[in-house]
C-alpha cells in the first residue's frame, strides 16, 4: 500500500480539515439520532473508539440515513513528553467514517541523542504527525442486537505522515520511513443488560510509537509490518457516564537495532494502556479523562523511565 501512496502534502490536509469543519458546521443543526455515547469518543488517531484504540462504531451522532461529524481536542502529558492532538471525523449513514487528526508531540528530551552521534537535534523539537483515517462498518449493530452475541464489525485504515523536523536525521539513521499505513479490523459489542462494552481490534502496522518515530527499522531491527491486538472494556455507570480500560499491544521494531549498536534497550518500545472515565453532559459533548501508561519511549534518553501520566480529551459531535 505504502509504495503506491506518495507522502501527502501538509497543504492538502489543511484544506481537507477546513472542508471537513465546514461540513461539520453544516450538519450541526441537523437532528441526528445515535444513543448517548454509542458513537464512542475520539481516539488520538482521530477514529471513533476509546482513547487509544479504534472501535467498530461509526463516529458522530449520525445513525442510519444521516450525516454527522465530530471534532476533538486532546492533550496528554507524561514524565518526559507531551502530546497535543486535534481532528475531525465525519460519519456517513452509520456506514463509513472519514477522519483527519493532527498530533503535535513535544520531543524535547531528544536533544540527548546528540550525545550519541552528531544528529543535530535542536532543543525543544516537536514531531508532527497527520493521520488520515477511513473506516467502514461491514456487519452488525453494537447496541440493538442485544439478543445475540454478534458484534458490530468494521475494517479501517490509517494513513500517517510524520514531520520529525531536526529529528529526521535520527529516523534516517534508524532506517525508519516517515509515512506508513495501518490496517485494522475491529469488533465491538455492547452487552446492554449489564451495560458492558467490549472491543477487540487487530491492527497490521509497522509504526514506531504509533508513527511518531517513523515506520519500520533497518536490520537487525524489524522493518516489516506485524499484527497487534488491542482491547477495550467499558462499563456504563449511567446513561452519560462510562469507565473503562484499554490495552494496546505495540511492535518493538527498534530495540534490536539499538542493541546491535551497543545501546542496550535504549530504543525499547512497550505496550500502551489506560484507565478512563468518559462523561457526556449532553448529546453533543463528551469529556474523557484518563490515566495512561505508555511504557518506555526511547528509554535511552529518559533515564529508562516508564512514561505514565494524564490524558484529557473533549469532543463535540453532531
Amino acid at each position, binding site marked *: 500500500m505504502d509504495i503506491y501512496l506518495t507522502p501527502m502534502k501538509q497543504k492538502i490536509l489543511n484544506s481537507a480539515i477546513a472542508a471537513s469543519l465546514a461540513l461539520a458546521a453544516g450538519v450541526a443543526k441537523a437532528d441526528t439520532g445515535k*444513543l448517548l455515547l454509542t458513537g464512542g469518543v475520539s481516539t488520538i488517531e482521530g477514529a471513533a473508539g476509546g482513547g487509544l484504540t479504534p472501535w467498530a462504531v461509526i463516529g458522530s451522532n449520525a445513525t442510519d440515513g444521516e450525516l454527522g461529524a465530530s471534532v476533538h481536542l486532546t492533550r496528554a502529558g507524561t514524565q518526559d513528553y507531551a502530546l497535543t492532538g486535534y481532528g475531525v471525523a465525519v460519519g456517513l449513514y452509520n456506514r463509513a467514517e472519514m477522519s483527519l487528526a493532527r498530533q503535535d508531540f513535544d520531543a524535547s528530551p531528544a536533544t540527548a541523542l546528540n550525545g550519541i552521534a552528531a544528529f543535530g537535534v535542536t532543543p525543544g523539537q516537536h514531531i508532527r504527525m497527520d493521520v488520515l483515517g477511513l473506516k467502514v462498518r461491514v456487519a452488525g449493530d453494537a447496541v440493538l442486537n442485544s439478543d445475540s452475541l454478534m458484534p458490530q464489525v468494521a475494517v479501517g485504515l490509517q494513513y500517517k505522515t510524520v514531520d520529525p523536523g531536526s529529528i529526521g536525521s535520527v529516523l534516517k539513521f534508524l532506517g525508519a520511513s516517515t509515512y506508513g499505513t495501518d490496517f485494522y479490523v475491529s469488533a465491538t459489542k455492547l452487552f*446492554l*443488560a449489564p*451495560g458492558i462494552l467490549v472491543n477487540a481490534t487487530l491492527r497490521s502496522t509497522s509504526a514506531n510509537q504509533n508513527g511518531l518515530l517513523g515506520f519500520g527499522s533497518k536490520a537487525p531491527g524489524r522493518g516489516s509490518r506485524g499484527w497487534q491486538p488491542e*482491547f477495550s*472494556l467499558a462499563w456504563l455507570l449511567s*446513561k452519560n457516564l462510562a469507565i473503562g480500560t484499554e490495552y494496546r499491544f505495540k511492535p518493538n521494531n527498534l530495540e534490536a537495532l539499538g542493541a546491535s549498536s551497543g545501546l542496550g534497550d535504549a530504543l525499547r518500545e512497550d505496550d500502551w494502556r489506560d484507565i478512563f472515565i468518559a462523561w457526556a453532559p449532553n448529546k453533543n459533548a463528551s469529556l474523557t479523562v484518563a490515566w495512561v501508561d505508555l511504557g518506555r519511549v526511547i528509554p535511552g534518553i529518559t533515564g529508562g523511565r516508564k512514561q505514565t501520566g494524564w490524558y484529557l480529551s473533549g469532543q463535540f459531535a453532531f
Partner: protein
Amino acid sequence: MKKTLTLLAFIAGCLLPGTVLAQDAIANDALYKAFGEKPGIALLMDDFVNRLIVDPRIGHMFKKTKPANLKEQLTDQVCLASGGPCKYEGNPMKAGHADLGITKADFNALVEVLQVSMDARGIPFRAQNQLLALLAPMHRDIITK
C-alpha cells in the same frame, strides 16, 4: 508470555458479560417486580406515552393512535417481556409498523423518551438496561426505512 496472560485476562473479561447475559435470559419475574409489577408498569407507560405523543421528533407518528390503547398494549408487552403474568393481544409488531417508514433515528428517539420516563419513575439504571435489552431486538420488526 505477557501477551498470553493479557489475552487470557481479556477473554475472561469477555466471558463475564456473556454469563451475565445468560443469567438475565433465565425466565424469572425479578425484573417485573423491579418495575413495580403491573400497576408500576401501567404508570410508567402512561408517563411514556404522554411524553411520546408530544415529542418533537416522533410525536407526529402517533397522530392516528389512541393513547389509551397504546398505553394498554405497551403495558401488556412490557409486563410480558419483564417476566410478568400478562398476555399481549395487540397487533403483531411487524405488521403494525410495516407502513410507518420508521428509521433507526426514530427508534433511538423512542428509546430516549423511554429512558426519560424510567428516570422520572425512579427505576434504577441497571433495571432500565435489562428491559431495554429485552425490547431492543424488536428493532428488526419496527425499523423499516
